């Protein structure tokens, strides 16, 4: 992976990217190990909650209710945040959000001089808008302070998971990155040990100096609380607290979907999120703060929230896809997904990988950039089962597939797309039982040239042409039996007129099964 951001506008199709990644056995091993561990932990702490399904139901309903009145709650948040001394900015799209953040950072320095460094908390929203690139272009270096994000940044890599962005790397790969890239005056990282403890200690040393020195921080937000104007961030390492507490200026970038109505609603979200995300009863640190503390100074003196749309209103407008916005970014669907487990996150060509990425990316980006993603699923439903806010991801995937087909069917493409033609033709076949019968016969004829008999006299197909060849790469296909079920059933009726319930039935005649 290169250092350039995962960008659905330039990423290869899922199938193409997946093919390459499946060949990387180290990556697959790392991904498999990590997803297994989190899944097991999650199952344990979810299992000890007899009211888990009630929490999920409430979580979903709170999110749905919020979306139904999103304008109201955003304005309420804005009002309360401002009253508490915070500043609220609005951005229609990624470009506006980047400009706003860069502008605030530039103005945050002492004596009107732009700072050259900021510290950052892991944030999918700032990854989504490729904020670091924009800051870099303005001469501002952003230090990622989450351990996994630091690994990604120093390794010129890309995040592959919402919660554990570096799960595709193992300890020796991380050690190599740190030895090569970590530079701190007076500290020699070149003979760094290889245990996770050694590596975490190195990150502590490397970053502590930044935490104590850098005066401007950028974060995302887990929840915006409309009722109080407060913001909640959930984390583990304490890097979040460092960024939220020590700098003089804090900028939090949040999608407009991040709002919850009340402080009380956190009692649902703070139970659902940690158990789903990391398999903990509660993550080590949750920070909740409201504007800037004027009475008893605590934390930054300037606080900014950037409320960003960036296509979220388009998802909101699509009733069958709106539930996508319920997402609280726990990553449970990624861990549970058998497709993600095979490919890891990079195949999805977007910072949002896995099942949630397969529905979020095509909607956040223009659909034609990500047409392959809604098909990157076997629709097994494991994602829906673990989703803490009950997003029916398979249903949204199917809905998005329909949109893809409509795009592909538009205009001339229909005539050159074999899949569209084939599926439309088959649909016509099923509309008439007579045509279906004829095509069953023709299908059997068509198979003749491709089939070979095995030892038991059963025909098998070991090679198929064109796109169907994907099947026969590793699987054989049994040929159609001589008689269809319906032929047998009709024949049987003729052989034994007046048959009634309870009559003896002849033994099913074997055809080689």
């Amino acid at each position: 992976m290169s250092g350039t951001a995962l960008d659905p506008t330039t990423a290869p199709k899922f199938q193409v990217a997946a093919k390459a990644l499946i060949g990387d056995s180290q990556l697959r091993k790392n991904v498999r190990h990590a997803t297994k561990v989190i899944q097991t932990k999650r199952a344990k702490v979810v299992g000890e909650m007899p009211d888990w399904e009630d929490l999920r139901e409430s979580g979903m309903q709170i999110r749905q209710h919020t979306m139904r009145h999103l304008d109201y709650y955003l304005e309420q948040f804005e009002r309360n945040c401002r009253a508490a001394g915070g500043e609220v900015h609005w951005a229609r799209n990624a470009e506006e959000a980047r400009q706003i953040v860069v502008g605030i950072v530039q103005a945050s320095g002492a004596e009107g001089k732009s700072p050259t460094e900021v510290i950052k908390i892991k944030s999918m929203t700032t990854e989504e808008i490729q904020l670091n690139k924009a800051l870099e272009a303005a001469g501002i270096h952003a230090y990622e302070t989450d351990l996994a994000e630091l690994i990604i940044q120093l390794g010129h890599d890309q995040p592959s998971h919402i919660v554990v962005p570096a799960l595709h790397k193992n300890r020796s790969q991380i050690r190599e990155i740190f030895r090569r890239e970590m530079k701190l005056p007076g500290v020699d990282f070149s003979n760094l040990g290889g245990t996770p403890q050694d590596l975490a200690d190195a990150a502590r040393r490397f970053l502590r100096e930044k935490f104590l020195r850098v005066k401007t921080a950028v974060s995302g937000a887990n929840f915006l609380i409309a009722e109080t104007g407060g913001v909640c961030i959930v984390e583990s390492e304490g890097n979040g607290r460092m960024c939220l507490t020590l700098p003089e200026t804090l900028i939090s970038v949040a999608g407009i979907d991040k709002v919850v109505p009340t402080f009380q609603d956190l009692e649902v979200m703070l139970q659902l999120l940690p158990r789903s995300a990391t398999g903990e009863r509660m993550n080590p640190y949750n920070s909740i703060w409201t504007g800037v503390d004027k009475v008893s100074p605590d934390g930054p003196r300037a606080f900014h929230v950037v409320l960003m749309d960036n296509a979220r209103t388009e998802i909101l407008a699509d009733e069958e896809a709106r539930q996508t916005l319920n997402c609280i970014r726990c990553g449970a669907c990624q861990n549970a997904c058998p497709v993600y487990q095979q490919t890891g996150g990079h195949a999805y060509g977007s910072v949002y990988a896995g099942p949630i990425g397969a529905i979020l990316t095509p909607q956040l980006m223009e659909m034609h950039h990500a047409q392959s993603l809604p098909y990157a699923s076997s629709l097994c439903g494991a994602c829906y089962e673990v989703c803490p806010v009950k997003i029916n991801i398979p249903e949204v995937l199917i809905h998005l597939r329909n949109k893809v087909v409509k795009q592909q069917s538009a205009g001339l493409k229909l005539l050159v797309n074999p899949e569209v033609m084939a599926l439309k033709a088959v649909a016509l076949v099923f509309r008439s039982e007579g045509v279906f019968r004829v095509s069953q016969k023709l299908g059997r004829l068509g198979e003749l040239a491709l089939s070979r008999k095995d030892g038991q006299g059963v025909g098998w197909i070991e090679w198929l042409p064109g796109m169907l060849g994907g099947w026969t790469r590793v699987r054989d296909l049994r040929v159609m039996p001589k008689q269809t079920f319906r032929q047998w059933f009709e024949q049987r009726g003729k052989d034994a007129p007046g048959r009634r319930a309870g009559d003896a039935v002849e033994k099913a005649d074997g055809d080689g099964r």
Partner: protein
Amino acid sequence: MRVSLFITCYNDTLFPETGKAVVRVLERLGHTVDFPAGQTCCGQMHWNTGYQEEALPLLRRFVEQFRHAEAVVSPSTSCIAMMKDHYPLMAERLKDEKLKAEVAALLPKVWEFSQFLTQKLGLEDVGAYYPHRVTYHASCHGLRSLHVGDGPMKLLRAVRGIDLVEIENLEQCCGFGGTFAIKNAEVSSAMLAEKVRGVLNTRAEAVTGCDNSCLMHIGGALHRERTGVRPVHIAEILASEEGG
């Protein structure tokens, strides 16, 4: 009871033995089986691949064929899941109030074969004999959409002579996913390889399940690798009798 069999398009064409077995089991239990001749396909392949407009007429056809049924039974978890999960929405899309009402009335009478036995008829032992080492594959739609739970396992445990072995990662998808197996052949193959390893680790002679599409997928790889392990629909095991 008069049971109307919805065989499904692919069972009709590719797996007639499964349909015959369903008929045998149901008749052995004293029920009458009829087969509405105009039936074709539930529309799942089209609906799930994104060709939703093409699937809509198949809903009408299904309702026309089965509207008077006392019970509809089908040996396919994914087709029944398709109906239960999407038919109400499809009727909504067609903006046809009469159809909507008919779908609402019909769906509770539609059963996946194993659920019909365990839930509708309340049976576990259907008098079968199958002296083989068998492992059971839980199809995703049965597991997560229809919630068949351990119903199929209960039916299998009651089979005389059977040596039932549980597969590791029972709840893991085999990688079929309809057109997914074609469109994302590499990923599908990787998922399949894991499932096949699980099957082989059980040292079973046969792998069974409630859906021939998964079994065709798993069986295709078992055959390619010349493992000798054969896929058998659960209906065929339940239809087998001593001395048969």
